């Protein structure tokens, strides 16, 4: 959800009616405004805040801000939204209840460069109009980059699943399930009690020996557990991949619903996370949501920059030494090749495996000659083709070998 000063203002004004004179009603209203802005806040957190306001001087605005933030926010990404909402919500309140001098606050820079809720009177309108101007500017910029505009309806028609035969669709689903289970079974370092285990479990051995008067007769063993591998999907949805996109969506969707812990991203000139959009059993709705929210679908490609965004913003928390990163792209890159190479190197270091699926690989006269593909090749653990069901089945077999 994109949060602009406008949406913040509307969220704040929508809870205005429930605001009262005391601290608690106001806190509740503020929490509700945050919820509307997409920040998860639980009641216990709000109660904790109301408990903690006794400990600090809430007239001191920076302290009050720190207090609310520490209690209500639990990830750094939400800070900019929180700051905007805080400025917007508690400003009006301050006029009623607090002396003017506490109003001087230091604006925390927001990541999106969006104008803040304003520190002075009438800042709201200004911020709103500025935001409008900003938005227009962005739209103009987009035009310059010649990203094709689209109507969601049209997109839906073009990428409709119904075009795919039922048989084919089913076959794909089966193949995906096979792949998913292959990826999902990996040995864990945690152990459980099992008859054929390799190490002795002293705790249980001791326990069992009690019934023989302390004589160790049975050895209880532990064996390794099977652990799930995480998968990150990075799908190219630029113009050159258009003819595969129906298949891609089904692949992303299928994998994410079969496996626990799949993160899905799509990229063209920029990167967007769509995990939350396809976390549903309702595929038609999911499609609707995706096409409604991804700008630059069927646009140009900048793999390097997209990977850079991924490495900077998402990889630290998502990619670990047991994550398999699957990139699906034809490798036609219009961006900076050296950046692509550096980012591939970075990613390689973080991830367990990198698999690149290239739909073009199947055609006989294809060689990975384009610069982007060339740069990425040394960092790949697997370079495979995906263009039909058979290739998916062979992908499943390869994964099985790799994980075992």
């Amino acid at each position, binding site marked *: 959800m994109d949060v602009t000063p406008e949406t913040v203002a509307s969220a704040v004004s929508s809870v205005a009616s429930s605001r009262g004179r005391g601290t608690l009603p106001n806190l509740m209203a503020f929490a509700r405004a945050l919820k509307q802005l997409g920040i998860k806040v639980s009641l216990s957190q709000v109660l904790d805040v109301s408990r*903690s306001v006794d400990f*600090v001087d809430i007239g001191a605005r920076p302290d009050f801000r720190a207090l609310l933030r520490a209690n209500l926010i639990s990830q750094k990404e939400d800070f900019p939204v929180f700051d905007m909402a805080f400025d917007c919500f508690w400003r009006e309140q301050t006029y009623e209840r607090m002396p003017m001098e506490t109003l001087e606050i230091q604006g925390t820079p927001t990541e999106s460069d969006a104008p803040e809720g304003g520190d002075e009177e009438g800042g709201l309108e200004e911020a709103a109009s500025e935001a409008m101007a900003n938005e227009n500017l962005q739209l103009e910029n987009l035009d310059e980059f010649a990203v094709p505009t689209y109507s969601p309806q049209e997109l839906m028609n073009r990428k409709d699943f119904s075009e795919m035969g039922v048989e084919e669709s089913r076959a794909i689903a089966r193949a995906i399930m096979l792949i998913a289970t292959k990826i999902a079974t990996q040995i864990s*370092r*945690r152990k459980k009690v099992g008859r054929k285990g390799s190490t002795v479990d002293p705790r249980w051995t001791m326990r069992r020996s009690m019934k023989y008067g*302390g004589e160790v007769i049975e050895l209880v063993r532990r064996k390794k557990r099977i652990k799930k591998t995480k998968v990150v999907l990075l799908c190219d949805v630029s113009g050159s991949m258009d003819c595969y996109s129906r298949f891609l969506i089904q692949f992303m969707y299928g994998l994410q619903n079969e496996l626990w812990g799949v993160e899905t991203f799509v990229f063209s000139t920029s990167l967007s996370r769509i995990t939350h959009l396809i976390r549903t059993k309702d595929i038609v709705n999911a499609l609707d949501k995706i096409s409604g929210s991804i700008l630059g679908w069927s646009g140009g490609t900048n793999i390097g920059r997209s990977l850079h965004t991924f490495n900077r913003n998402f990889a*630290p928390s*998502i990619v670990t030494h047991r994550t398999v990163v699957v990139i699906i792209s034809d490798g036609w890159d219009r961006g900076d090749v050296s950046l692509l190479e550096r980012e591939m190197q970075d990613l390689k270091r973080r991830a367990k495996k990198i698999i690149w699926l290239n739909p073009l690989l199947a055609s006989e006269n294809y060689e990975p000659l384009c610069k982007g593909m060339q740069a990425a090749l040394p960092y790949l653990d697997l370079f495979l083709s995906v263009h039909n069901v058979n290739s998916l089945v062979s992908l499943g077999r390869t994964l099985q070998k790799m994980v075992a």
Partner: protein
Amino acid sequence: MDLKQLTIEQVQEILLKEKYVCDRSLATVVYLSLVMGKPLLLEGEAGVGKTEIAKVLAKVLDAKLIRLQCYEGLDANTALYEWNYPKQMLRIKLEEVEHGDKAKVETEIFSQDYLIKRPLLEAIQTDGANPPVLLIDEIDRADMEFEAFLLEVLSDFQITIPELGTVSARHRPYVFLTSNRTREIHDALKRRCLYHWIEYPTFEKEYEIITTKFPEVEAKMAQQICAFMQKVREMNFYKRPGVAETLDWASALIALNRKNLDDKSVVETMGCVFKYREDLHHLREQVESRQLNLDTLLRVSPELVS
């Protein structure tokens, strides 16, 4: 220390006395965590002083520091308690030789004497005037199962040992959790904690940190170090250096008796700041190709308002 009398300013002050420089918002959060008895989850890049603050606090509160370093596969046995099996075994053998009472042995070998306390149980059972500081370090390295288990301990501060019964905390320990964000912590755990993200320090703050830790450092060089660190954190390195690296570097330069930074000494001592071959290589390239011009960087380093 009487917590009821504590103020945010005092927190900042006592931390500074132990050479920990912290800004107002961090001090506020630490203060709240102390007075509310709520665990504090600290996140931030590596080397910004997440672990350090717990250590320093234990010192100033005159409390015992109990540290639980998390790793993958960490389980309840290693974190909570374990029975001392060899000792139990020996005891049983001994009784056997002496033809002791079987029922008596059975109850005895499951008593406190045969219990090995691991960090979490220790934190809950600690005697003494002050509650201990429990530092659960790098929680992101442990797996989800452990997190769920921790949730239970942190909400009630009591542990049930089937053979002994329930042990509850005499004093609620001050709990600090740190995470490097190599994965996301579960919401349920986050909700039980106060949250703070420690940023890389600003130029002024980093300068203050260096001069607090090393009062003997030349002001000029300290400024140069800070300017350099600020610059490289903006650049594209695999591992951006934290405050820990800054301090390492500063102490190295002091040990080498440098009063001033120049191209040569930067390249020579870069091993303190960058720990990856690619990063060192990248830096050398940048210096050689004059992309990163040390002369201008060091000259224009912002002057401090004294």
